[in-house]
């Protein structure tokens, strides 16, 4: 312990001098995944904003090709290492950040800059283990080539301690970046970076921890943990944020929000989804609702709670991860505000995150019955299952926007998923007078369809004049041009055949 304290003191006293050319610059490395590459900058911007930074002043937005995943690096200017760490540790799509010590057109120039920055001082003691990684994107470097690169940096990274490849105290890295996506063999890199890894994502671990394969209670529409976490970050969920999902289902979005520190309220109309199931009950069509998980739960999870041995509910998923329990209500989101005292719900939430039902995998329903309504006999009322009728997609979106516009604080964010064709444009996304569109990026599902992640921010206070029955009816009829365009593009399945009588 004493040694460690001493070592930290020494490190603090001998922090590397900074050169203005490279000071406060960090090379962020994104996670390489085709299905999330369009969400990188959306998430990064949201995290920068929630750290109180302006994304535009922190980095230069890369060209469309780079944003589409050609290059998984971005140079970020952060005013302090603390803010940088705040952003990187909470990111799902950033792997880690390198404090840039040197940058150059080739290794020679880069190494010289890094060496000049460090000066002649050796600032890590003998106890400090270290390693120097060599990384190139787009080309494979064999061990010999890596060693050749390392040799050029002998003067730049001088350490007295032992080298340790795994779990080193100090990790240096040299990165080669190429202009072309697939450079020819032996091509020279366009730029080289050298520096020290100063922050790594901690939230990324949640992707495997919250993996659906180990989830105790699932429905047919449970959202994959990674996308749920990205949505939570996009909506700005962090420690202590109040979060609402008016179409909660089995709570996969709320689980992600709670894991990032949110306090959650969810509602859903589906009795089966919320009530849970006995362990012995099984559905043929709806896989494993309440049955045992396919994969053996890992040691990182909590032991099975006494409440969850026999019957699994939405709460089992929170207990499993040791998360604070959400508040869950069974209600009809098309009549959301009928059940709340106005001042208690209006402007009460920091974030609204939702994957509303569009009838693609689960048909949307709301309370009510088309046609003649028979009164329910009193003796049957206790056990009566209320009738529901189809809930039109336009209404689902209208209600979601209205709920977000009223329930969010000013500056609060809404993040939701919208299934549509690939050619959806920001103009097609439905608008609410109190909400401003921040971002809209796709996750490709097929050559024709994509799942769009839409992020909106509440720009001004909600007013009843914004959303009169007339405005709403206009949207409902599809008279509103953008909405009509959207309706055409929505990837909805063909209506089911009429039931046989």
């Amino acid at each position, binding site marked *: 312990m004493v040694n460690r304290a001493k070592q930290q003191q020494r490190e603090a006293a001998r922090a590397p001098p900074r050169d203005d050319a490279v000071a406060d610059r960090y090379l962020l490395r994104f996670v390489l995944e085709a299905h999330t590459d369009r969400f990188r900058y959306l998430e990064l911007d949201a995290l920068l904003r929630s750290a109180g930074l302006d994304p535009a002043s922190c980095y230069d937005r890369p060209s469309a090709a780079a944003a589409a995943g050609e290059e998984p690096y971005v140079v970020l200017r952060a005013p302090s290492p603390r803010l940088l760490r705040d952003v990187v540790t909470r990111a799902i799509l950033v792997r880690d950040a390198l404090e840039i010590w040197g940058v150059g057109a080739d290794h020679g120039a880069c190494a010289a800059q890094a060496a000049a920055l460090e000066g002649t001082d050796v600032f890590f003691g003998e106890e400090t283990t270290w390693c120097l990684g060599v990384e190139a994107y787009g080309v494979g470097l064999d061990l010999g080539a890596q060693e050749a690169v390392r040799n050029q940096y002998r003067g730049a990274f001088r350490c007295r301690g032992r080298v340790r490849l795994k779990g080193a105290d100090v990790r240096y890295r040299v990165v080669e970046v190429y202009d072309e996506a697939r450079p020819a063999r032996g091509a020279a890199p366009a730029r080289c970076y050298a520096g020290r890894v100063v922050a790594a994502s901690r939230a990324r671990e949640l992707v495997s921890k919250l993996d659906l394969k180990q989830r105790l209670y699932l429905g047919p529409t449970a959202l994959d943990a990674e996308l749920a976490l990205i949505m939570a970050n996009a909506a700005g969920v962090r420690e202590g944020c109040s979060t609402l999902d008016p179409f909660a289902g089995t709570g996969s979005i709320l689980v992600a929000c709670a894991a990032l520190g949110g306090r959650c309220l969810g509602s859903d*109309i589906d009795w089966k989804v919320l009530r849970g199931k006995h362990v012995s009950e099984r559905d043929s069509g709806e896989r494993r609702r309440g049955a045992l998980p396919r994969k053996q739960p890992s040691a990182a999870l909590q032991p099975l709670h006494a409440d969850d041995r026999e019957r699994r509910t939405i709460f089992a998923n929170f207990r499993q991860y040791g998360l604070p329990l959400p508040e869950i209500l*069974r209600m*009809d989101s098309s009549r959301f505000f009928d059940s709340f005292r106005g001042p208690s719900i209006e402007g009460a939430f920091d974030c609204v995150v939702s994957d509303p039902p569009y009838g693609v995998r689960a048909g949307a329903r709301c*309370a009510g019955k088309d046609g003649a309504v028979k009164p329910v006999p009193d003796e049957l009322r206790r056990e009566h299952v209320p*009738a529901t009728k189809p809930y039109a997609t336009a209404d689902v979106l209208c209600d979601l926007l209205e709920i977000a516009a009223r329930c969010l604080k000013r500056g609060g964010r809404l993040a939701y998923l919208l299934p549509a064709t690939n050619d959806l444009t920001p103009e097609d996304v439905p608008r609410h007078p109190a909400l401003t569109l921040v971002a809209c990026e796709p996750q490709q599902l097929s050559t024709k369809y994509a799942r769009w992640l839409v992020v909106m921010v509440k720009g001004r206070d909600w007013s009843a004049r914004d959303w009169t029955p007339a405005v709403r009816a206009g949207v409902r009829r599809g008279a509103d041009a953008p909405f009509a365009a959207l309706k055409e593009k929505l990837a909805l399945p063909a209506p089911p055949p009429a039931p046989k009588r």
Partner: protein
Amino acid sequence: MRLLTHNMLVSNAKGVSEAEGYPLALEVTEHRREETEFDVETTRKTMETVKYDALRGAARAVAIDLPEVYDGDDADLLRKVHEALCDVHVIEGCLVCPKSGRRFPINNGIPNLLLHEDEL
């Protein structure tokens, strides 16, 4: 359901206004306490939107006695308020509309606010 949520809910029965349908009477057959971290400032902030009288009535149903008058400077009271708002979970019970008497059951910790088709 925590009492914080109870404090937000009004009866959605047809023909019952927001003022008439609040607060919902709380009947508790099973409840549980799960201690959470207490922070004076957070609780004081939460209380800005909480209706104290309704909270006091609901707290009685889970055997927590709150004084008649709320005092935001009383740290002991705030601790008790926090306990009532956040630590108590109603598992089984009922919410009753003060005007129409419509009963909204709470099962497995989830209140069912859905109206039947003939009540809409």
